[in-house]
């Protein structure tokens, strides 16, 4: 009964997420085509920038937020074995967020909000766009509240017991998102909406960029944590083994949340409104937050090795061959880790304070984040969907082979798309241009890479269509009597019986975050109120 209701809630969220995803995939392929200049009839900077803005909002805000909410609700009820707390409120949050998406979509699709998903004041979008984006965030806050309440209630009912790892990670993400979204919320509520409504005449773009940087880094961990959650709580079991270490997994999530927050200035390395010392401080933290990823890579690979050896794999590398490569979750994690290695390398280049000058805002950057977000992260969203669909619908997946083909083609397409994208960046091509009109010989060297990107985009689009087709066919297939599949969480190698409170709760970590955020952002934000700044009036585009 309640289970059915939660399954419906989760499915509703996931379908909104994947609906946004497929729409944005078509836009992505159009964009690489338009950008290449191959087809004259497509050339239109106004359509291009409306499309880029919509693609960014759909992928970065809608796909992620709805996926995370739907996944989180199902994790909370199944890992805690508790009914959902306040189901009407959960649906309320869902509809607020959907209303926000619809509101934002109207100006986006009509070309009245071509400000890209990073907003870029003093260029101004229609006020409805900002209001829509705010509602989406407010809807997601409802989810955060429900996760935190369920976490606390379970702890009260089970004093001294370790919170199941899946819920620990999900609650960590809810807290992370509350802290993360505060920055952009301040920017939208106190700067963008008042300016768009004409309540104020000018805003300080320096302050706006600082507030956005607050959000801009940890938001990627908000997107990434569900993928890491799947790494830890599903993958070992699906591979036929055990989780290498439960405690270290918790520590990794805590470090991600605590140090993911106070480091946003690596997005402002090239900005004149913040001083070098603050940038170095945030750069320092950026390298600290690479630690949980190093540790996650180790734990996941160690868990896979246990599984491979249990399945009879021998020798130094023999266990790799004996992994169940035809299990979609296992295949996805292998491909995800491969992309993480290369994407992580690019990320270290970006994070390197001085080296960043060579690649800042070049095509290298979208190449990097497509590899690490659309690659590493979204491929795990696919794997989770393939895993949950039969459980949520109580029907077998339409085609497991198609799922494997889809995961492989996503990986291949992403490789073909992002490798040339990185190279274009090194050849100096700026990101965010709709066509190449510079009358300069340098641009000749860009052509072959742009053509390769079209091919990569096509492979990805085909792969995305397979994904949606498989899910839809499963949904529409007739009910099979007697088909039962339950969600299975991985067991750790050594069962966790008791945990110190700081690995089982966030009270201490919230205080640590508050202190770190004050250190990292206190003076950099307050400075704008103490130096003589000059506001900018609003501009169209």
């Amino acid at each position, binding site marked *: 009964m309640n289970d059915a209701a939660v399954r419906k809630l989760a499915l509703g969220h996931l379908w909104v997420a994947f609906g946004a995803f497929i729409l944005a995939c078509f836009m992505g392929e159009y964009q690489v085509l338009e950008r290449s200049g191959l087809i004259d009839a497509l050339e239109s900077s106004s359509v291009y920038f409306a499309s880029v803005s919509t693609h960014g909002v759909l992928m970065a805000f809608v796909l992620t937020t709805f996926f995370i909410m739907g996944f989180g609700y199902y994790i909370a009820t199944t890992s805690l074995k508790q009914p959902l707390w306040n189901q009407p409120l959960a649906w309320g949050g869902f509809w607020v967020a959907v209303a926000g998406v619809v509101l934002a979509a109207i100006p986006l699709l009509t070309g009245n909000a071509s400000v890209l998903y990073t907003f870029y004041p003093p260029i101004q979008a229609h006020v409805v766009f900002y209001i829509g984006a705010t509602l989406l965030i407010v809807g997601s806050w409802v989810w955060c509240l429900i996760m935190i309440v369920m976490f606390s209630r379970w702890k009260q009912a089970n004093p001294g017991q370790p919170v199941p790892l899946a819920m620990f990670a999900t609650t960590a993400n809810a807290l992370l998102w509350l802290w993360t979204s505060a920055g952009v919320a301040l920017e939208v509520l106190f700067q963008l909406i008042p300016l768009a409504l004409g309540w104020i005449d000018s805003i300080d*773009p320096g302050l706006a960029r600082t507030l956005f940087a607050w959000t801009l880094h940890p938001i990627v961990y908000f997107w990434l944590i569900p993928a890491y959650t799947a790494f830890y709580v599903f993958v070992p079991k699906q591979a036929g083994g055990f989780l290498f270490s439960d405690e270290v997994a918790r520590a990794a999530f805590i470090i991600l949340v605590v140090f993911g927050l106070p480091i946003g200035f690596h997005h402002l390395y090239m900005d004149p409104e913040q001083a070098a010392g603050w940038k170095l401080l945030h750069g320092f933290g950026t390298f600290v937050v690479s630690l949980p990823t190093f540790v996650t890579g180790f734990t996941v690979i160690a868990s896979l090795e246990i599984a491979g050896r249990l399945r009879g794999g021998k020798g130094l590398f023999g266990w790799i061959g004996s992994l169940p490569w035809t299990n979609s979750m296992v295949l996805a994690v292998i491909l995800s880790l491969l992309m993480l290695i290369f994407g992580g390398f690019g990320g270290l280049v970006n994070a390197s304070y001085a080296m960043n000058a060579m690649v800042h805002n070049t095509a290298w950057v979208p190449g990097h984040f497509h590899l690490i977000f659309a690659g590493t992260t979204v491929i795990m969203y696919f794997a989770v969907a393939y895993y949950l669909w039969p459980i949520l619908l109580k029907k077998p997946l339409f085609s497991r082979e198609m799922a494997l083909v889809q995961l492989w083609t996503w990986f291949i397409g992403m490789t073909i798309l992002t490798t040339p994208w990185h190279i274009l960046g090194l050849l100096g091509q700026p990101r965010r241009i709709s066509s190449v009109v510079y009358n300069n010989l340098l641009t000749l060297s860009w052509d072959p890479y742009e053509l390769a990107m079209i091919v990569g985009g096509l492979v990805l689009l085909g792969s995305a269509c397979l994904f949606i087709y498989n899910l839809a066919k499963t949904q529409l297939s007739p009910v099979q009597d007697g088909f039962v599949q339950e969600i299975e969480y991985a067991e750790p190698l050594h069962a966790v019986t008791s945990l110190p409170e700081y690995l089982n709760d966030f009270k201490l970590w919230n205080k640590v975050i508050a202190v770190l955020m004050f250190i990292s952002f206190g003076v950099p934000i307050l400075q704008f109120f103490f130096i003589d700044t000059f506001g900018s009036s609003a501009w169209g585009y």
Partner: protein
Amino acid sequence: METGPIKQKLEQQWQDLSLQLRAIPINPLERKWATIALLIAALFIGIIMIDALVHGINAPSNVETIDSARLHLSEEFAEDNLGVQTDGSGLITVRMVAGRYSFFPKHIDVPAETPVTFRWVSLDVLHGVHIPMTNMSTMIVPGYVAQVTTTFPKPGDYPVLCNEYCGLGHNHMWSNISVIAKEDWAAPVKSAIAGGPENE
């Protein structure tokens, strides 16, 4: 002293935390790997710190404000003062204005193998500027002066590209810079700039 009990309490808490930390079973392999990862991060941070603090390689960070709506009335960025200037001691400063959709002046000459200080301002929205294959890169935020000092090693004609979305004509926002062999470059005469046609 008042601080006594607080200090004691903190020490107690620290001891508790250390005890708790030691109570967690961490596999020796995992411990080794964590140490390696820490060393990798420390190595990168070390290199960056040496570059920043010893070699003075820093991102543009001068936190200097200016009224973007009144650039033409400012002394420094009035039209006559834009472009390349040398001061008495031979230091080269380039003052540039970014506005939709170009950088002004549209073409400048600078010497190779010589430090050049660029000062960029925007007259309207957010822009960015990058000279490909070089580290002359900065955001140009309205309301702020972005200052970058760099040395171009190789002579040649380079494009100067806007690399931040600034509106529907963003693709068209670019200009040129010629890097001239050090011995062939002559400092522009100030009076020639004033009212001259070079600024287009």
